């Protein structure tokens, strides 16, 4: 423990003086009214002012005063050891990607270095080893007072690229103060081969304090491998002697996690991998993989089109033998495409009904008409149509050019080689450059025996992606709208050529399918500008100032750097991802700097100022002293003592306040009624719903709480399954907000029971409510209504009912006429005039205060049963309307 202002402790010598003062000062007198004061005047005691302050009270007060003095001296617990050496301190911070995970600890370590330097009165210079985003070289700041440097240290952020140790070494050698020492907050990774020189340069300056060693390994999420049915998430880390696990989350563009996998990292292993299986639709919505844990640029991999799975539809000319082994027209296609895409079969309509990237037609002519139009529309929206020639399509060549063929074909086919021919089966020529097949090796074993020929045109060369050695086209293509049509001039099986037997076939198809993203692959040298880049914590943001475009061909080989930060590059419809993990040396642990004093980065307890708790203790002691003084003077009454104790208690645990509890109507099911404003009607409604809830609770397994009065302007209606709405005769048209609230409630499955209370005998009790109903229902989305009959679900949702009496009976009850599947065919509104609430109402002693008309216990029971049916209807929908129950219900009706 040390004191920030030790000179204050001199005041402790005042304590004896204070003790003497306290002893000679008598306690304050009590005050008494006394009528016989005249007899007391002038009566002076012989014994004046004895010192009656008890010794323990004196000790208490002196202790409180001593606490105050010590607190004002600002004692500090756990003060860090001061730094060695003299002169300025160079604070070196690794702020590359590996530092992001525990950046708060590093910032705290940096702050503690600044505090120590400030206490020692030394100036500080800052050297961040990772270049910042402005393109400025790595350099140390000038030495300045710690207070001036503190904002810069606070503003320092981790970068999404590795630290530049070589440049930092240059900066270190350039920093030449007189004397000085180094505080180095290391990220513990080698990064490159310049670490030894870097460490030597650190040691050359002066004594080194190294804050070292992250508690968790710094993991890097590598770009996943794409397989047909899964993404393979890969994680790299410095090898560790114990096996660990990492969790990888697959997220969509809106940040939702669509998949999750656990990557096991065995002991002493540098990498681990795990598959992530997702349906193609979900997989194609992924935009990033994230390593669960503290956010950093290394824990994010952005996914671009390269990882999209493209469903391929296959369609053969004859559906019967298309998958026959070694002979079927789709047999080879399935095996070539299956491993890396999702292959779908079926008829053309079924295929086009779902999302489809590529459609392969193997020797299947397309008839002009609806089929051709549908296909053409699909292609022009961006589909890739791959067609294979064959005997059938060779026959079908007509006079009109087929829009779904890239070239106009000549009728018939051409046979190369054979018993009656002098020429030999043709070989492939090299693929033209600037085609998708560019760079594929030519398979020598491929021979083409037969092909269909295109009518020569001027742009035939541009349309040809692959040709035979004699120059005749093997693969031709033509764009159609946003899509493309590709024609293989041979069959998809081995009848006409060896191509399907070759590995080249697989590569060609893979290139073609990769083409199908709807994105024309950018040319090799196209510069892709940075669009959004990751910051040090793995968040996408605007690119830094130093970020520059890079050629598309190099995006997979470029290491993350200030010039090329990780992120998304290119135009909006063809973003390419540059990932930090793509080109990154395997993370290896770095040794510590030789001769450095090692300080832990993590369990360095922060300095604790003891002043505030000491002051609080002094205040408590003084409060206690006040209580004791009051007690000694006899003024301590229970109320005052309680108040003082309360005060002291509120000082001590100020944070132990429980949150305020508010009534929440969503916690239990309850009925509600819409407040009419007439206290009599509202009272009946409340009593009625109370009676009904009671009845329902007794007779059914539904558990209803006490009903609520609901004001649609304020309350959230969605928690009430059923609202009872008695119409007052003076009701006025509703304000728009209330109309909107009620319409929303009805459209989302709520039920409103509207009661005009004027049915039958009730016409005299509640005159004018029908006109009032007409007024209030203006603007309400009430569907067309029809009288409810015995076939309605409401008549059998719990009890079997023939009519729906309330206090009155006689007139029909109305519900929605049409079945609305959206709301489970439940009518959003029930309209009637039977004054049900009055029939259901019970008073405090459990009796029914309102007689039913025309009367009888039977009517009361039926009214309750209607209520139960209504509650069940509101809670279970048309469950009882299922046809399954009709026979049983009919049977019971028959009895």
């Amino acid at each position, binding site marked *: 423990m040390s004191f920030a202002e030790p000179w204050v402790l001199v005041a402790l010598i005042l304590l004896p003086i204070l003790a003497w003062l306290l002893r000679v000062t*008598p*306690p304050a*007198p*009590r*005050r*008494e*009214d*006394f*009528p*016989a*004061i*005249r*007899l*007391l*005047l*002038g*009566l*002076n*005691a*012989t*014994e*004046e*002012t*004895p010192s009656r302050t008890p010794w323990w009270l004196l000790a208490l007060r002196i202790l409180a005063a001593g606490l105050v003095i010590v607190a004002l001296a600002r004692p500090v617990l756990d003060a860090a050891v001061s730094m060695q050496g003299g002169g300025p301190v160079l604070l070196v911070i690794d702020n590359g990607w590996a530092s992001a995970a525990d950046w708060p600890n590093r910032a705290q370590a940096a702050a503690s270095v600044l505090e120590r330097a400030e206490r020692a009165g030394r100036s500080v210079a800052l050297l961040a080893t990772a270049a910042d985003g402005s393109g400025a070289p790595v350099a140390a700041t000038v030495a300045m007072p710690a207070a001036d440097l503190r904002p810069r240290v606070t503003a320092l952020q981790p970068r999404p690229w590795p630290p530049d140790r070589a440049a930092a070494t240059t900066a270190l050698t350039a920093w030449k103060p007189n004397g000085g020492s180094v505080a180095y907050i290391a990220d513990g990774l080698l990064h490159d081969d310049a670490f030894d020189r870097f460490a030597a340069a650190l040691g050359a300056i002066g004594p080194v304090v190294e804050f070292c060693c992250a508690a968790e390994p710094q993991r890097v999420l590598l770009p996943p491998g794409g397989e047909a049915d899964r993404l393979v998430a890969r994680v790299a880390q410095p090898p560790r002697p114990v096996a660990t696990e990492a969790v990888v989350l697959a997220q969509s563009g809106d940040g939702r996690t669509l998949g999750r996998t656990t990557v096991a990292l065995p002991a002493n292993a540098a990498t681990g991998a795990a598959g992530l299986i997702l349906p193609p639709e979900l997989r194609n919505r992924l935009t990033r993989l994230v390593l669960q844990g503290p956010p950093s640029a290394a824990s994010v991999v952005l996914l671009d089109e390269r990882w999209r799975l493209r469903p391929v539809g296959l369609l053969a000319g004859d559906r019967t033998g298309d998958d026959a082994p070694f002979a079927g027209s789709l047999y080879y296609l399935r095996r070539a495409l299956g491993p890396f895409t999702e292959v779908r079969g079926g008829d053309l309509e079924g295929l086009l009904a779902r999302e489809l990237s590529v459609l392969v037609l193997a020797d299947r002519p397309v008839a002009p008409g609806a089929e051709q139009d549908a296909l053409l529309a699909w292609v022009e929206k961006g589909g890739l149509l791959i067609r294979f020639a064959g005997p059938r399509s060779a026959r079908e060549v007509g006079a009109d050019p087929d829009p779904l063929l890239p070239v106009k074909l000549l009728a018939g086919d051409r046979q190369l080689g054979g018993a009656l021919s002098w020429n030999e089966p043709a070989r492939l020529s090299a693929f033209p450059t600037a085609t998708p097949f560019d760079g594929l090796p030519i398979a020598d074993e491929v021979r083409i025996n037969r092909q269909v020929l295109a009518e020569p045109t001027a742009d035939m060369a541009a349309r040809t992606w692959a040709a035979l050695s004699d120059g005749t086209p093997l693969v031709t293509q033509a764009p159609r709208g946003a899509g493309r049509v590709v024609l293989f001039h041979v069959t998809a099986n081995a009848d006409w050529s060896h191509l399907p037997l070759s590995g080249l076939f697989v590569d060609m198809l893979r290139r073609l399918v990769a083409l199908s993203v709807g994105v024309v692959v950018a040319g090799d040298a196209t510069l892709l500008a940075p669009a959004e880049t990751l910051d040090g914590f793995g968040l996408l943001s605007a690119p830094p100032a130093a970020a520059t475009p890079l050629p598309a061909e190099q995006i997979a080989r470029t290491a993350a750097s200030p010039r090329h930060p990780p992120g998304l590059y290119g135009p909006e419809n063809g973003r390419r991802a540059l990932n930090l993990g793509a080109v990154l040396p395997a993370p290896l642990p770095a040794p510590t700097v030789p001769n450095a004093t090692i300080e832990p980065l993590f369990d360095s307890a922060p300095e604790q100022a003891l002043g505030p708790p000491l002051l609080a203790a002094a205040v408590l002691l003084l409060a206690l002293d006040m209580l004791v003084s009051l007690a000694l*003077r*006899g003024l301590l009454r229970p109320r005052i003592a309680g108040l003082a104790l309360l005060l002291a208690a509120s000082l001590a645990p100020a944070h132990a306040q429980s949150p305020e509890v508010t009534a929440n109507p969503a916690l239990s099911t309850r009925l509600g009624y819409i407040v009419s404003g007439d206290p009599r009607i509202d009272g009946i409604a409340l009593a009625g719903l109370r009676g009904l809830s009671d009845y329902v609770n007794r007779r059914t397994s539904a558990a209803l709480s006490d009903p609520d009065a609901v004001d649609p302007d304020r309350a959230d209606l969605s928690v009430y399954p059923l609202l009872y709405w008695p119409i007052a005769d003076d009701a006025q048209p509703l304000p728009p907000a209330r109309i909107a609230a009620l319409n929303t409630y009805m459209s989302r499955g709520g039920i409103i029971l509207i009661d005009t209370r004027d049915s039958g005998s009730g016409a005299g009790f509640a005159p004018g409510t029908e006109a009032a109903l007409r007024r209030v229902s203006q603007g309400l989305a009430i569907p067309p209504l029809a009288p409810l009959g015995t076939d309605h679900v409401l008549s059998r949702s719990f009890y079997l009912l023939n009519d729906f009496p309330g206090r009155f009976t006689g007139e029909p009850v109305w519900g929605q006429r049409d079945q609305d599947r959206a709301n489970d065919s439940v009518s959003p509104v029930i309209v009637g005039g039977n004054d049900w609430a009055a029939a259901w109402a019970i008073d405090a002693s459990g009796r029914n205060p309102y007689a039913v008309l025309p009367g009888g216990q039977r009517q009361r029971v039926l009214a309750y049963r209607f209520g139960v049916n209504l509650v069940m209807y509101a809670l279970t929908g048309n469950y009882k309307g299922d046809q399954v129950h009709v026979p049983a219900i009919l049977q019971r009706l028959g009895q």
Partner: protein
Amino acid sequence: MAEPVRPGPLASRADTARAEAIGARLPPLLLAADRVAATVAQGVHGRRRVGQGDSFWQFCRFVTGDSLQRIDWRQSAKSGRTPPDGWFVRETEWEAAQTVCLWRDGSASMRWHSRAVAEDKRDRANLLLLALASLLLRGGERVRLIADGNAQATRAIEGRFGLERLAGDLAADQGDTSMPPDVSLPRHGAVVLFGDFLSPLDDIRALIGRFAAVPVTGYMLQILDPAETLLPYRGRIRFRGLEQDGDTLIPRVETIRDAYADRLKAQQDGLAAICAAAGFGFGVHRTDHPPETALLSLYTALGATASRR
């Protein structure tokens, strides 16, 4: 502790009821009066001269002008003389009622009680005054309240049912002087004073002297709170008077308790001496003692029965 003033007939009715209940245990009080104030009111005190009354006083020779109805025919016949010389008229003694003037101290120092008792001194004074008045009225005497202000408050009250009116007058009297006001009193009347009489003795001597000069006689009852008698406080206390008469800081009250008791004794002795000199009776009453004892001592001191028999 000063309590709010109790106005209104309801409070006085409760006071009256309690006072009557206390007084009911004693027989009606007939005042011992050697000389009776000259009032026209019929009473029980003979004035040793001819006048209206029930008691026989003397026979007197009939002179012309006397009413024939007043002739005592038996005495006339006994005399044996001829009419009208032998005619005697029967004369009765003039009997009059004594007027008792009552006063109680209503000042702020009376509206106080210590924590040990629940009733302040003025309430006790009111109670005793009403109880005494009830006894007097039942005895046929006249009662009058000494109060400054209007004549309504200073009327004389007689008859058994005058107590209510007296209680009303008492409630209406809000005088807060610690000395009775200087009103004219009937000569040879009686005065009963209730109060704490903590004022300087000179003031009280002047007061009693004024009464003796009228002349009236009477009784002085000093009503004290037990705290005023015993000074039961401890420790360091600042005492404050209730009538702007200063305050004093006593460092240790327990040390001056004896000195205070001496001073109080001196005051009471002084009061007794003053009263004895003027023919007044003097008594002390503590509010924690039952009111019946004070009433009994008043009864015996004022009562005529003891002195006449």
